[in-house]
């Protein structure tokens, strides 16, 4: 009788095990996915990205990084995401007003740095893209950028057994779809959190500004730069016009080209000032090569003495995040 009891127990355990293996789609190769928590800095607002729709995992982030650096996402193999979004320039294009794309073409806007994207609900300088997952489709299909088709990218990736294995592990199916490819890219981009600058250490009480930086921070607040470049993201994420005249060779109307509303003419998304020392040239079309040009532009609305300019620059340098730049 005891034998029946033991057999029952064994069968019961077997049943439970079967249930686990047979019905779980996540672990096709038996390895567990290492889920990770989004590293939201203390005292920062809640991110807007819906992590429930795309749970972060160590493997997902690594897969996204591999895609971000993979030239096969472009038509001729020469233009991975990272060709325009370079880690050493805080994921902008270093020293370029416009970036290079397929067939010796240039982009028509300055590549923004990529960090703290989990707090953004619109993308591009005109906010035309409504979700981080949708963002990669624009450069992939733009004829002057990566010049590919979504189908072309999916075909190339699906022909690669290693990718299929990685996608199976992260998303439960080896077949690489538009949704899963873009979710993987999002996982990598979401983890580009810039919150380890000297400014952040000062805020955490782990470092102190020197006297010039301290004075520059005071000017930053007094001159109400914070209205648009609001802490801690150093952007209010809104669309504003800062008085830049239309560049007739580009005829870029900014936000108005998305909303069709005349009130949005020449409004562009406020860029973050984090890592500003690395993301020059500045403005949506990269028309200002350095901070002096920017101060000159603002001279009509926010006049600064040359001493104030120097002090403000000292403060802005404390927004550079070496950890972001080096943590590729």
């Amino acid at each position, binding site marked *: 009788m005891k034998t029946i009891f033991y057999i029952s127990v064994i069968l019961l355990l077997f049943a439970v095990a079967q249930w686990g293996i047979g019905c779980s789609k996540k672990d096709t190769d038996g390895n567990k996915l290492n889920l990770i928590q989004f590293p939201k800095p203390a005292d920062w607002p809640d991110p807007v990205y819906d992590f429930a729709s795309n749970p972060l995992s160590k493997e997902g982030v690594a897969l996204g990084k591999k895609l971000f650096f993979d030239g096969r996402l472009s038509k001729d193999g020469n233009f991975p995401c990272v060709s325009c979004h370079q880690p050493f320039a805080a994921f902008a294009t270093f020293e370029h007003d416009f970036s290079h794309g397929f067939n010796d073409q240039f982009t028509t806007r300055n590549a923004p740095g990529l960090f703290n994207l989990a707090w953004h609900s619109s993308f591009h300088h005109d906010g035309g893209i409504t979700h981080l997952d949708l963002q990669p489709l624009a450069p992939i299909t733009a004829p002057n950028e990566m010049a590919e088709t979504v189908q072309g990218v999916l075909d190339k990736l699906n022909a690669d057994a290693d990718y299929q294995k990685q996608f199976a592990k992260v998303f439960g199916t080896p077949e690489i*779809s538009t949704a899963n490819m873009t979710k993987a890219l999002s996982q990598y981009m979401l983890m580009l959190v810039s919150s380890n600058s000297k400014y952040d250490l000062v805020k955490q009480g782990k470092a102190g500004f020197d006297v010039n930086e301290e004075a520059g921070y005071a000017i930053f607040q007094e001159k109400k730069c914070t209205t648009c470049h609001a802490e801690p993201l150093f952007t209010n994420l809104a669309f504003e016009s800062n008085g830049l005249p239309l560049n007739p060779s580009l005829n870029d109307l900014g936000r108005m080209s*998305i909303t069709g509303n005349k009130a949005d003419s020449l409004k562009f998304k406020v860029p973050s000032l984090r890592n500003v020392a690395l993301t020059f040239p500045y403005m949506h079309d990269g028309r200002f090569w350095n901070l002096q040009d920017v101060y000159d532009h603002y001279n009509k609305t926010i006049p600064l003495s040359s001493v104030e300019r120097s002090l403000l620059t000292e403060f802005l340098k404390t927004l550079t995040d070496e950890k972001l730049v080096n943590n590729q």
Partner: protein
Amino acid sequence: MYLSCVRIENRYSVLILLCWTLLILPSCQKNIGDENPATAHLEIRFHPQLDGFPLELGSTYQLPTGESFEPTVFKFYTGNIALQQNGGSLISTTKDPYYLINAASTEELILRTSIPEGNYTNLEFLLGVDSARNVSGVQSGALDPVKGMFWTWNSGYIFAKLEGISPQSTIQGDQVEYHVGGFRVPYNAAQKIRLAIPRYGNFQLKAGQTCIIDIDINLENWFTGPYPLTIASHPVCMTPGELAWNISRNFSGLFSVTNLSIEE
């Protein structure tokens, strides 16, 4: 004493055996019982026409505006399909919310879905994609951006695409390209289409039956209606906004039900 113990042990064993049987059996079963027994089938067959003839991509037609037009592409999204009950309320279909209809293939002009049984009068569907699906990340199935009906730089679906060639076009290659979409107010180009089913008044659809509705798409009405459109004045619409919205106002005139049949 020993015997009674054995009996108890025996009873427990049977219980445990029963337990694991119950546990293992339903664990991996597909939900077979999901289909509502009171469900009927609905099949909609679209028949694109131009100038009174069945549409053949690559043939030249005369438009009511007097212009000549050779269509090469005609596709559109339809979704939120519902039948109106005789009493008044709308009953939604129960399968995929969206379908991509494509004139290039006979099979892609037919959509099959299911709906609870009932007594129905009108058909309603959306020509376009609801605004929520335009802003909530990358969709799959018919709405996968890989289908080429998505604006990547200004997130949103192209609800309807009509492309071709016309000597009246003012752009290079005599091209005509109407990509109509946009979910942002005030230019939301998704149009609710409500169609009466003539001659049938109301009809009874019973569980297990298939209701087949034939719908003509009279493409000349793309150019006529609340917004008269000529190729000469607007050969191209490539962005969401006022022009796309204006063209979409003509869409309710495209469709008419020509036949309804119910098969057992």
